[in-house]
């Protein structure tokens, strides 16, 4: 009741030491930039605000709504934090939340915390803010729709990154872990998108000054739009590719020296293994992925309109 663990928190022991260290390096260098940016642009007032916002994200993760059959939707919060506080502050807030979950509640390990922060804090904030930044100056309905897509994509990005890290560590099979993680999180992401859109719509109505154009664009440069779109494209291209053509990705990884030689011959045991519900060529599945994104975007846009009209 107090706290429900989520499927993206990797525990210790599930990632190899190399992957853990690589993730820590990425996380620490990104956080270094985030800290210097927030120190430069924000006064001392911002520290209590970010602390309170971290507590808010932690507490907001307790809010859930029943979907069907005992499952419930709830919030991860990365996109919401980045949209309301800006990308750098959002990253720091999410880092604090994930740090406390790992330290205090053992939800996510300590040695793999770098990976958890990267997946659920840095990537989600980048996608969330990057896409939202691209529609600044547009109408409110457009903003809400894009925020919903961004929230859904942030969860998918985190899920894909988690799956890839598990695979590179030799903990799971690529052609199972990627579709499994993405399928589950496509639903979880929908909950995330709906709550994010409704929460932002509520803030737009009651305290529009907190989401005004000026401060939102001052929080990050236009470069974030590129980062957000780049990550989006990477997710769109990589997830169908990883699902339909695992040998290709396997080859890239072994060329880069990630995989132990012992795993290179893994597919001799199950030579005929294919994912039946996905197409056979990478191109067709990439198109399918893009089509899926458009459908999700339309659904969220319609819902956003509906939510606005009713209230």
């Amino acid at each position, binding site marked *: 009741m*107090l706290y429900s663990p989520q*499927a993206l*928190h990797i*525990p*210790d*022991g*599930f*990632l190899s*030491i190399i992957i853990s260290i690589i993730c820590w390096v990425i996380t620490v260098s990104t956080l270094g930039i985030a800290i210097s940016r927030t120190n430069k642009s924000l006064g001392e007032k911002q*520290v*209590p*605000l*970010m*602390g*309170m*916002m*971290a*507590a*808010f994200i*932690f*507490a907001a993760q*307790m*809010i859930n*709504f*029943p979907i069907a059959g*005992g499952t419930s*939707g709830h919030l991860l919060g990365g996109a919401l934090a980045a949209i309301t506080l800006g990308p750098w502050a959002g990253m720091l807030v999410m*880092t*604090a939340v994930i740090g*406390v979950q790992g*330290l*205090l*509640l*053992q939800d996510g*390990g*300590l*040695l793999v915390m770098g990976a958890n922060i990267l997946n659920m804090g840095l990537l989600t904030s980048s996608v969330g803010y990057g896409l939202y930044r691209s529609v600044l100056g547009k109408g409110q309905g457009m903003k809400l729709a894009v925020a919903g897509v961004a929230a859904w994509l942030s969860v998918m990005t985190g899920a894909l990154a988690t799956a890839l890290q598990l695979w590179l560590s030799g*903990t*799971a*099979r690529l052609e199972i872990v990627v579709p499994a*993680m993405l399928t589950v999180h496509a639903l979880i992401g929908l*909950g995330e998108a*709906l*709550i*994010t*859109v*409704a*929460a*932002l*719509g*509520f*803030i737009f109505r009651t305290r529009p000054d*907190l989401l005004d154009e000026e401060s939102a664009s001052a929080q990050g440069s236009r470069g974030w739009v590129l980062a957000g779109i780049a990550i989006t494209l990477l997710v769109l291209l990589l997830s169908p590719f990883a699902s339909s053509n695992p040998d290709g990705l396997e080859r890239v990884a072994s060329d880069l020296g990630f995989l132990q030689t*012992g795993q290179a011959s*893994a597919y*001799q045991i*199950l030579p005929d*293994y294919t994912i039946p519900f996905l197409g056979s060529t990478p191109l067709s599945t990439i198109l399918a992925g893009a089509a899926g994104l458009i459908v999700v975007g339309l659904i969220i846009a319609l*819902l956003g309109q509906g939510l606005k009209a009713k*209230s």
Partner: protein
Amino acid sequence: MHFDAFDRYHHATSFIHRLDPRVKVVVTIAYILSNTLLPDGAWIAFGLALLFLLYANALSNLGMAFTFKRSFVALPFALVAVTVLFSIPGQPLTTFHFIMWDFTITDMGLLRFESILVRSWLSVQMAILLVATTRFPDLIHAFEHLRVPSILTTIIAFLYRYLFVLGDEVFRLLRAREARSAASPAAAAGTRSGGSVAWRARVAGHMAGQLFLRSYERSDRVYNAMLARGYTGHLNTMNPHELHRIDYISMASALIVILVLQVVGRL
């Protein structure tokens, strides 16, 4: 909600409780690192690591089985590792048929699966012992000494301080929703209550938005109150931690034991 509703600290007077938090953090991370580095199937080393853990448990006066009882939090995640059973080449142990595939479990796959579970199970117990024997503010302070940037530790200190306040807010919101969305008696038995999924999502979203505004406005008041009390941008502490000789000795001996574990695991 009580202020320590989220706290995992268990008070006792023991050697481990008195150790400097920095020593505990360093040894815990070294222990988890060691588990990650041990090769698959190094059962003797894993056994010694378990003994080390049990010894630490015993020293903490919390009971030998203390961490064992709460050690299964990471178990659901083991589901993602199940696939390694079939993916590593080796001697086939058993084959079973599922829908349209034949799955063959190999001895190497089984070895890897078991090793991942044991690593995770041992590591999570040491982390449980760390937070059970160290007060959270001391833990944050230790991380500050270990060069974690102060802006992060300050955010975490605030998060910890206000989590139960916002937790109470969430419970009020949840109670208000339950009171107003007219759940039928059947709803209490687990079926859905209230309107469509979109309606329920909207209500949950409005709750999150409401919580956001309450938190935002509260942070203003908190900041003003802090200013009134002389806040200058960083938090001070009244109990500076000092490393004594016993801390150095314990840390050195623990690290030597962990090093020995690594050597044994590679013999």
